């Protein structure tokens, strides 16, 4: 029922416009009071008394820039991202966004909790997203929070909410307790693929930057998001996830994108030498990536020479895989009117700003004029 809102009838054609801008990374945020109020009594009491297990990312790597958010994004009460009216005004209306994909990060660390609490948190987040956001604005689309460390519960949550067509993907942390390619998580990926839902990995999670010891600064943490994505994607490819689940689609969110070219080259070179270790991989890693992986622009990479952006876009095969994102309301917000690299062709702009996201998320290509 819900999806029909966006399907135009013939008589409406004249009032339609092409979808020109899709923002694939918007962060609405729950207030702590909202969160506790919505939890079942048992878990509300638990959280009030004992708190949550995962140390907050802002405590691990304090954001020394405007508290991590756009300085003008504070509503009269609460935190940036908590107020629909302000988000609508500053983001959706201001930038004429046709569709905005909401990624609630409040459940990204909840895999640390015991499974029933993790599941309760994800339910709260998903229901809140529907009631407070998706029901208020037909431009908004949601991502399903799932208790990823307990795949059976995660699949149950997908089953509970996926019938609402406004949920367009599953949301997972870029770093969980096991590597992204671990067969432990395959049931969740299968449940997503069976429903045609992409799996989005957003930077963050409770195990980031562990490999060679943890860096000291937010600068490294933030500039290293793409490195985590490289490791995540390496795991998905090398453990045979894409070979095992041919319909799986992946979105890598807020890790940048231009690192992809070099990763493809090194995985291909490695596979040529070592393919006997993983006979399940019967194609070049870059071919799996080409078929299964989408990425977003946030934060937009800015080489001194804009020509380099265009070159890597081509080298990485990103032209029809790269999706625009603002990352509202975070401090490094990218504006669709000023952050795009110079020199993109009209067709490249169209794909980047809307076309690629329309394809991945199955969004309508036309909407009613507002």
């Amino acid at each position, binding site marked *: 029922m819900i999806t029909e809102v966006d399907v135009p009838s013939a008589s409406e054609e004249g009032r339609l416009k092409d979808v020109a801008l899709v923002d694939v990374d918007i962060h609405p945020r729950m207030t702590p009071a909202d969160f506790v109020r919505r939890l079942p009594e048992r878990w509300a009491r638990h959280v009030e008394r004992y708190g949550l297990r995962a140390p907050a990312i802002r405590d691990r790597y304090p954001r020394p820039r405007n508290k991590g958010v756009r300085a003008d994004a504070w509503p009269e009460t609460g935190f940036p991202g908590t107020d629909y009216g302000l988000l609508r005004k500053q983001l959706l209306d201001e930038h004429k966004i046709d569709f905005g994909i909401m990624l609630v990060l409040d459940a990204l660390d909840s895999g640390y909790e015991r499974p029933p609490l993790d599941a309760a948190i994800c339910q709260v987040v998903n229901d809140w997203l529907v009631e407070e956001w998706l029901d208020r604005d037909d431009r908004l689309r949601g991502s399903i929070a799932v208790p990823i460390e307990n795949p059976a519960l995660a699949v149950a949550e997908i089953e509970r909410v996926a019938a609402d067509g406004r949920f367009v993907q599953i949301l997972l942390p870029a770093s969980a307790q096991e590597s992204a390619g671990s067969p432990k998580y395959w049931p969740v990926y299968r449940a997503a693929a069976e429903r045609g839902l992409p799996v989005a990995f957003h930077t963050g999670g409770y195990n980031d930057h562990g490999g*060679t010891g943890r860096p000291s600064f937010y600068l490294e943490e933030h*500039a290293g998001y793409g490195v985590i994505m490289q490791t995540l994607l390496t795991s998905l490819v090398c453990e045979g996830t894409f070979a095992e689940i041919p319909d799986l689609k992946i979105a890598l969110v807020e890790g940048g994108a231009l690192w992809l070219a*070099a990763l493809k080259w090194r995985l291909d070179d490695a596979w040529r030498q070592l393919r006997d270790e993983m006979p399940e991989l019967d194609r070049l890693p870059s071919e799996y990536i080409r078929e299964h992986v989408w990425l977003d622009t946030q934060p937009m990479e800015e080489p001194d020479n804009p020509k380099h952006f265009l070159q*890597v876009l081509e080298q990485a095969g990103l032209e029809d895989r790269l999706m625009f994102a603002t990352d509202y309301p975070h401090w490094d917000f990218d504006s669709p009117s000023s952050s795009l690299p110079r020199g993109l062709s009209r067709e490249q702009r169209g794909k980047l700003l809307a076309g690629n996201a329309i394809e991945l998320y199955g969004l309508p290509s036309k909407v009613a004029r507002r």
Partner: protein
Amino acid sequence: MTAMTLTAAVDCDLHVAPSSLGTVLPYLDEYWRSYIEDSTVGLSHPGYPLGAATTGGTPPSSYDELAPVLNAANPHRAILTCLALDGVHRNPYYAAAMARAVNDWVREEFLVRDERLRAGIAVSPLDIPAAVQEVERLADDGRFAQILLPVRGDVPYGNRLYHPLYAVAQEHGFPIALHAWGRGGKAPSMTGVTATYLEDYSSNAQIAQVQMMSLVAEGVFTRFPQLKVVFMECGFSWLPPQLWRFDKDWKGVWREVPWVKERPSDYVRRHMRFTTEPAQLPQDPHQIAQVVEMVGPELLMYASDYPHQHGDGFERLLAALSDEDAESVLRGTAAAFYGDLIA
């Protein structure tokens, strides 16, 4: 690539390794010899499984095994790399003793026999004061050209923990060489041991990016303005996009790291170099030329990486370089980078 061009080359990474612990036992004292015997500890190279095509066989374990390799390519200089420390043990005192033994073995078995040879001073990141002592012990030998650390550590290399080592490196003009692998059992990132070697092998590049950022962000080059760092066997084609992102983020949150006075990429281009194996590049020569221009050929130094086999990337790289750039990559950049250490 012809033998002619390599004759003048500086090979920055040529592997040797003891074939067994027995080879280095004579360089260990009685306590460590009995420790090895009682604990049945052996040599372990988790990064180089012998059956993997990338490993390419066992490295030379004696000068007699090395000589034919050296004579075939006949480089002007070859810097030996011995990674015998890359075990999975956690004993810092054992690591320090092994470092001494390995360095003495490399000197006695190889360096004293051939003027073309130099070597990295192997040290363990598990005991930095011992590493400092080891560098001081060998600094005046004249045949050691760099300080060799595994790129995978327990704490990122910008951390103050390591600064005493950088002080002694700067004092003697030794570059810090961060070589692929090391600290066996250290996963490339995040979540523990990887499920496949393919993944582990591919991931030294991620670790190198983390270390590159750590060294800059912690102000190592502000504190040690003469210090040089070379990433070995970690690739280089990942560098440009990571620098774009690093520079952009620094503009946003520079107040967190006030000692970083210039753009991160300025430090990287001034202080860091990268060896040419593995050269992970596109197939299209036109795109290879683009990558070379973005990376900057002046950052690359030739390494045979014998006996490891990473594919034909280096040949494709060389084909894309101008004669002048090829000369720099094969010799000139290393000659300037190591200076008197390889003169």
